[in-house]
């Protein structure tokens, strides 16, 4: 075992982690620990754009952006956080441009902007061009640019270090409200050697990304297994609003590979088997550019009502055939290539089969607007921060608008980086790491390694598949009490089976078999929290739609869910929503 000491340790090297690192490493001694090489992070798969009211191509302002974000989030957004997000958006884009990000340009050389779902002028009058973009690989460009800046700044990376535990000086659930709980460090498994490392730090930032692999049909990478969220939960910290999961309308049918909403921003149209532009019925004003939750539900409804396309009538069609091929090549080169490569469909001439795909966790580790992690509704954990998809600040509420997540990672990654470094610089000594800090991780690793060669055991892949299938069947776009109760039972059964899983690889080096077994543990924990929150929330709001409670219920459910893991299962609490300016209204588009 090797021990390290830093002022700031950042866990995760996607957009939020690297944006934080650029701030933190200028101010304090910083290490970035990452399961993947930084350039492999899933920020690089984001396509369509990053929202900011630059008003480069038409009239726009940050206040309209705030309103759209709040309304898009079905009024579960903390409005103080949304104001920060939208006000700081402009500098966030300009900062990236100055770092060298190659945005597409207007004829007069400015950053170009395009339309995206739910982004409107004058509070819903019509779509507005707010998304700053770089073809359909904006996330790729952000990831590359941040990585390049990290090279320039000589940020210290620990590549392929898989963080598995967070060490706090006290049990946050056993500590009375108002008393300090302080971060001490993290414990990581070095994948190339199997060695366990402890990192003591004054500040720790979690930027570990999402958990899309709880679902079968997902746009998420294999590696997005909710590790950071699961670690927080195991450390006794709550997760906020986990029942709100975004299903992106346009995944490649059957595969879930993302086709950017930019396809509709550039003029693409969704059609059912009858060729009808069905979104006109669901969102008469902004049609195909309605927020994702509404479009995803509309698509699923078309399929259920028998108007799905294809031999099994189980998907709808994204029609780009009326767009000029040159326009497609210029603005949507990658996603049209995905359609050709994976479905053999030529988007110039044929509509593309699409269906909703699990895409984004609106919920996560609760934080303040400075990125400080909350251990209950009011107390922060000293020195602990979170940003990006693993966090919930909450700027996305019940449904995130497209292009707001690339914005989120930049705005709140930056804030967390500054806050973590400032905290470290104001702290004389990090909390002590106990002598047995690594005991839990050593226990997990040695227990799983001891299963090699055992008989009568379960396979990781079987348990994971069963989990993903039950989540797709029961916890997707449409939910009700019966489906959620079924999912609850299946997950409980799978957790028992998980206790009996065996792996095959007995080695220490690059034991990716062990890695997948550990990841599955996190997936099961996250799924349990998602379902518990969805079962308790007897209303429909944003991405969470209950067929047995089809309307929003502001009287009983205008609050965030705070979920805690306890010895007796998931305990749920409520946290008030911050409302500054916009009272809840009916959500029509």
């Amino acid at each position, binding site marked *: 075992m090797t021990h390290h000491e830093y002022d700031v340790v950042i866990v995760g090297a996607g957009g939020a982690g690297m944006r934080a690192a650029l701030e933190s490493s200028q101010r304090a001694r910083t290490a970035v620990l990452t399961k993947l090489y930084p350039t*492999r992070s899933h920020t690089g798969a984001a396509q369509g754009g990053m929202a900011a009211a630059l008003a480069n191509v038409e009239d726009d302002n940050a206040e309209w952006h705030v309103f759209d974000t709040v309304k898009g989030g079905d009024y579960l957004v903390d409005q103080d956080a949304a104001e920060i997000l939208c006000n700081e958006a402009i500098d966030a884009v300009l900062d990236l441009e100055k770092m060298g990000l190659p945005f597409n340009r207007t004829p007069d050389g400015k950053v170009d902007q395009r339309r995206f779902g739910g982004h409107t002028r004058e509070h819903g009058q019509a779509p507005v061009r707010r998304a700053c973009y770089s073809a359909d690989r904006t996330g790729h460009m952000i990831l590359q640019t941040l990585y390049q800046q990290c090279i320039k700044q000589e940020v210290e990376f620990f590549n392929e270090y898989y963080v598995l535990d967070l060490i706090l000086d006290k049990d946050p659930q056993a500590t009375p409200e108002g008393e300090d709980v302080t971060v001490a460090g993290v414990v990581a498994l070095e994948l190339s050697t199997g060695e366990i490392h402890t990192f003591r730090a004054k500040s720790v930032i979690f930027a570990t990304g999402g958990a899309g692999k709880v679902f079968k049909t997902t746009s998420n990478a294999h590696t997005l297994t909710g590790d950071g969220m699961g670690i927080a939960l195991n450390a006794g910290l709550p997760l906020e609003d986990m029942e709100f999961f975004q299903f992106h309308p346009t995944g490649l049918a059957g595969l879930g*590979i993302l086709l950017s909403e930019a396809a509709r921003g550039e003029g693409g149209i969704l059609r059912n088997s009858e060729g009808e532009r069905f979104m006109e019925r669901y969102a008469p004003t902004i049609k195909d550019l309605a927020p994702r939750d509404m479009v995803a539900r509309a698509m699923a409804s078309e399929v259920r009502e028998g108007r799905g396309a294809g031999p099994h009538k189980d998907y709808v069609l994204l029609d780009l055939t009326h767009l000029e091929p040159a326009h497609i090549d210029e603005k949507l080169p990658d996603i049209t290539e995905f359609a050709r490569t994976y479905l053999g469909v030529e988007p110039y001439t044929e509509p593309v089969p699409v269906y909703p795909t699990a895409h984004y966790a609106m919920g996560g580790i609760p934080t303040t607007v400075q990125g400080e992690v909350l251990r209950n509704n009011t107390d922060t954990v000293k020195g602990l921060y979170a940003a990006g998809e693993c966090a919930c600040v909450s700027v996305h509420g019940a449904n995130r608008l497209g292009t707001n997540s690339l914005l989120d990672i930049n705005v709140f990654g930056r804030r967390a980086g500054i806050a973590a470094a400032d905290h470290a610089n104001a702290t004389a000594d990090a909390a002590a790491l106990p002598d047995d800090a690594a005991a839990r991780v050593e226990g997990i690793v040695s227990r799983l390694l001891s299963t090699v060669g055992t008989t009568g055991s379960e396979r990781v892949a079987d348990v994971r598949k069963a989990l993903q299938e039950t989540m797709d069947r029961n916890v997707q776009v449409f939910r009700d009490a019966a489906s959620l109760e079924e999912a609850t039972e299946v997950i409980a059964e799978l957790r028992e089976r998980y206790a009996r899983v065996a792996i095959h690889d007995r080695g220490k080096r690059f034991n990716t078999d062990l890695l997948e077994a550990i990841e599955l543990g996190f997936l099961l924990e996250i799924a349990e929290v998602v379902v518990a929150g969805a079962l308790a929330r007897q209303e429909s709001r944003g991405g969470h739609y209950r067929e047995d409670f089809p309307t929003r219920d502001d009287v009983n459910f205008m609050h965030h869910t705070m979920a805690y893991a306890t010895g007796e299962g998931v305990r749920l609490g409520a946290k008030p929503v911050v409302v500054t300016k916009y009272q809840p209204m009916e959500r029509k588009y």
Partner: protein
Amino acid sequence: MTATAESPAADAVATMRVEIQILRMNPEGTHEREPGEEYWESFVVEALPTDRVLDALHKIKWDQDGSLAFRRSCAHGVCGSDAMRINARNRLACKTLLKDLNPARPIKIEPIKGLPVEKDLIVDMEPFFASYREIMPFLMTTGNAPERERLQSPEERHRFDDTTKCIMCAACTTSCPVFWTDGQYFGPQAIVGAHRFIFDSRDEGQWDRLEILNDKAGVWKCRTAFNCTEACPRGIEVTKAISEVKRALTTGEI
């Protein structure tokens, strides 16, 4: 309650038996193998013609041999994790469909060449990233930054578009015969990375970068084999980018 889509082709097309031969190496050894010994192992999987090579590797790992080691993440050709040598050509496992490989014959999979193998299909990427870091892959400017964005015309932006697509998968560099034999050569990816900035109208560090590439380890090592261009899963015209860098060095003009 079901609201999920099955693959449109899933039950229309029958599965097939595909033989996958993998060049393996376990650094710690196994019951039958010495540590570090390289050997071919054959697996048979049931797969759809439209399955990716990555899907077949997962079937092996998940159902037959959990110790098989390879990197992967996004599974749709944008993260750059799973470059490997498939039927003697560098490709991304997640962007190569079985039907495009003549699955009637065994499919041979090896680690990419020229980087130290760590385990099975996993290689040490550090030398590759070290070359990238050497070409100063970041925007260099002088003077005060403008208040708003730096202006750049669509034409200027287009000038370096091709090389911005790079996902650093190393398929190009590890297909280069010069790179295999000459440990000093930066390799094509580092030159692509430099090209992306040299031809960016906002950048003022192009001559510093060109000087690095003019070095004995730089562009002049390229023998224009075109392997890199063929290997690039992003369709970047790598050889063209390298020749543009060579031309800039020869003419002194960008």
